[in-house]
């Protein structure tokens, strides 16, 4: 007997929708995926909408009051909720605004319109979706790696627990044969950041900005000491590394 295909929905909150584009760029796999599931919601790719779905992939952070209601509704409708990408799983870049009073943020972005436009007026400090609802699985990264999406996707369909990396980026950096960023006179968040990206930034000559969030138990105290040892002041470190790390100081 043919089983009914699982219904899958994609949602976006405050984000650039780049992670959904990563899903759409799985061009070799999409025909297979469409044979296995029905996609019922995917603003980036289709106009139809439905409230009847089994798995919800949610991109973006929660940064407006109205989004709190919406994300709760998604949790009610879905059997499984997967956070898709950094904004959703850790709060992401959007949390940069949390350093300032919301009134100042509104004014600096929208000027006078901030007072009249409801959507703008509704702004709250940005946060990951798991600060509002329970999240079953996380796909990390800014943007997500394709292979991680495919791994979580196939695991869920097979009824397996997805294998989500919990080791620092150093592991993949060593495997890539990279010389340590610190040895090159730069600084890096790799030692406390969750791997899964194949250390792509360091492999291309940059440093790790921590877009995938911390490992489960990061040694942040040690990392502070390391940064100091390499001549960085606390202030410069905070400025440099608050790009992705403002919402969740530790864990997840």
């Amino acid at each position, binding site marked *: 007997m043919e089983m009914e295909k699982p219904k899958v929905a994609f949602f976006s909150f405050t984000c650039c929708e780049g992670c959904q584009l990563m899903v759409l760029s799985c061009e070799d796999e999409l025909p297979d*995926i469409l044979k296995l599931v029905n996609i019922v919601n995917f603003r980036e790719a289709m106009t139809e909408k439905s409230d009847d779905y089994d798995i919800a992939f949610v991109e973006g952070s929660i940064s407006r009051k109205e989004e709190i209601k919406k994300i709760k509704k998604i949790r009610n409708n879905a059997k499984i909720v997967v956070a898709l990408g950094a904004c959703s799983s850790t709060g992401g870049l959007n949390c940069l605004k949390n350093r300032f009073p919301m009134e100042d943020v509104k004014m600096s972005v929208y000027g006078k319109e901030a007072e009249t436009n409801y959507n703008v007026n509704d702004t709250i400090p940005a946060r990951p979706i798991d600060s509002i609802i329970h999240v079953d699985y996380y796909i990390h990264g800014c943007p997500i790696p394709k292979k991680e999406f495919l791994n979580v996707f196939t695991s869920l369909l097979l009824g397996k627990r997805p294998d989500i990396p919990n*080791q620092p980026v150093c592991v993949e950096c060593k495997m890539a*044969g990279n010389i340590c960023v610190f040895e090159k006179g730069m600084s890096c968040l790799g030692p406390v950041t969750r791997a899964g990206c194949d250390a792509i930034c360091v492999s291309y000559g940059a440093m790790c900005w921590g877009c995938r969030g911390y490992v489960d138990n990061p*040694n942040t105290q*040690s990392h502070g000491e390391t940064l100091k040892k390499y001549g960085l002041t606390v202030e410069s470190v905070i400025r440099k590394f608050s790009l992705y790390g403002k919402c969740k100081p530790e864990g997840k």
Partner: protein
Amino acid sequence: MDNKKYAFITEKDFKGLVTGLIKEYKVFGTIKKDGFPAFAGITSFDELELFQSPTHLSAKEFLFPQRETLLKFNIQNKTHEPVIESGEQVIIGMHSCDIHALTLMDRVFAAGTPDPNYLSRRAKTIIIGTECFPDKFCFCKSVGTMTVEEGFDIFLHKLKKGFLVRTGSVKGEEILSRLTKSRPAAFKEIKEVEALQKVKEGSFITTLDAPAEELPGIYEKSDNSPVWDRIGAICYGCGSCNHVCPTCYCFDIKDEVKANLKEGERVRVWDGCMVEDFAKVAGDHNFRGLRANRLKHRFNRKFRYLTGKFDALFCVGCGRCSRTCLVNINIAEITNELIREHNKK
């Protein structure tokens, strides 16, 4: 030194040897990467640079890749076929510590159920070793790996002019006679190498303060040492030490299924005992949840646990883990601390 074992080749011969090997084999050699010695595939003699200090990563990846497919399966047809990917290859520039490590890996992968993937690759690999000189992290002299007598096909000792050559296999002899105009070494060339060895022996900045054979016993009595908690507090659990180590051979096995949910591959990837999830089992129980316990485990694997099984230390003194550690956990210093504690008792 017995002069029958030694040959001499010129610089020109060496170039001819490397160039000839590149024509016939996939060749990995030492190059400079971001200012540090590293192994990489080379396609011309000019890319090769011989170094005195160890490479950033060891050469283990050419025999035990970071990721390899072990079998391909089809869920629908319930079929599977093993995959063994290996090809003829040459590794140039391995130092004596790394060749010792290689012989240990050979024993590990041949023990129990022999590992066909590793052994197939090993059988097709030609090892060309080169002489080295200790930096401040090297301590091979203290663990008996400063010189090497087996595990290589050809070993080169750089002289003021040319190289003194030792061969360690029939294959090595064949290559040497085919690709170079080697001649038996002269007495003074052998003397030159012996003199260099003496200088090398006296140049170690790092040494262990106990003989190698006493180390397993010292580690056996160190389980309750305060050392573990102290270094556990600063360790990241980043696994860098595992991945640069030439004798860390642990791996994870994963089944990766394609998006059609029909076909898939079973892959083997490097794993390391220093990362948090290494000893995590079903139900999320973690046998070594604390970094201190993981460090104690790793150090004991090198100096105690495996010595019982293979009758050899599994630390070859290359110093890579100490060199790479961001928080300066130094395996030789820690071992010396344990030796001091042991001597006080």
